[in-house]
């Protein structure tokens, strides 16, 4: 079971990293699909920096957690995944439900839950 959790965490690293790299190096194509347009360098910089940075950092934290066998990293990812999900809930409440965002929201909750479980299950490495 523990091995399965570690494999799932390793698998979750990949899409996060790919999305982060896309947000970092090719934000225009990615965000046009979402109806987001950055009009100048500052807008592009903010999107690249914050969104790309969060996703890449998340992937790196999961990988370091697995590598170092230290579950504080998993707790870090759980915390920010929960905050992302909370931000989506705020969006759903104030702006309406975007159906395309629902599966992503569920994915974020699942990753967050998995990270908490991993933190609880591997106590020796805390």
């Amino acid at each position: 079971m523990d091995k399965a959790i570690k494999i799932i965490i390793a698998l979750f690293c990949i899409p996060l990293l790919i999305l982060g790299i896309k947000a970092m190096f090719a934000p225009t194509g990615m965000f046009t699909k979402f109806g987001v347009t950055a009009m100048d360098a500052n807008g592009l910089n903010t999107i690249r920096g914050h969104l790309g940075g969060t996703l890449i950092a998340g992937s790196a934290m999961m990988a370091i957690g697995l590598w170092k066998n230290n579950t504080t990293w998993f707790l870090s990812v759980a915390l920010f995944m929960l905050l992302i999900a909370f931000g989506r809930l705020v969006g759903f409440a104030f702006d309406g439900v975007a159906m395309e965002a629902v599966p992503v929201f569920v994915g974020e909750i699942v990753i967050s839950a998995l990270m908490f479980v991993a933190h609880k299950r591997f106590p020796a490495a805390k």
Partner: protein
Amino acid sequence: MKNTITWVLRIFIGIVGLMLLYPGFMWSFMPEANLLQNSIEVNSILGINFLKSGMGTALLTTAIFMFLFLFKGEKWFLPSVILMATFLLIRVVSLIVDGSHTLIIAGILVEFISLIAMWGLNKLQRENHSQQ
């Protein structure tokens, strides 16, 4: 002297954390002003949802990690540093690729100084622990 520097760094990191909470909150709940300031246009619910969750979280998480480092100790040092360093790295990449802006330079400076402050504080706290 070391105690004074430790406290100055703690206060500085606390202030940066507080400064990040405000835009994080604004991105999450009232993003209009930030969209205008950053020249970002959004024309779909998915887009605004994406920005509220992504941008708000980036700032709020960084602030929370910094507070956890201040109040819960060393084990939160590296997560805070990784997050801040990734933002800094990508900002510098974007500075080269997209061009410059006053706010970009300000962001780079704050992130760079915060990283040095966190590294310095962690080092001093380690020295204090080893002396005790």
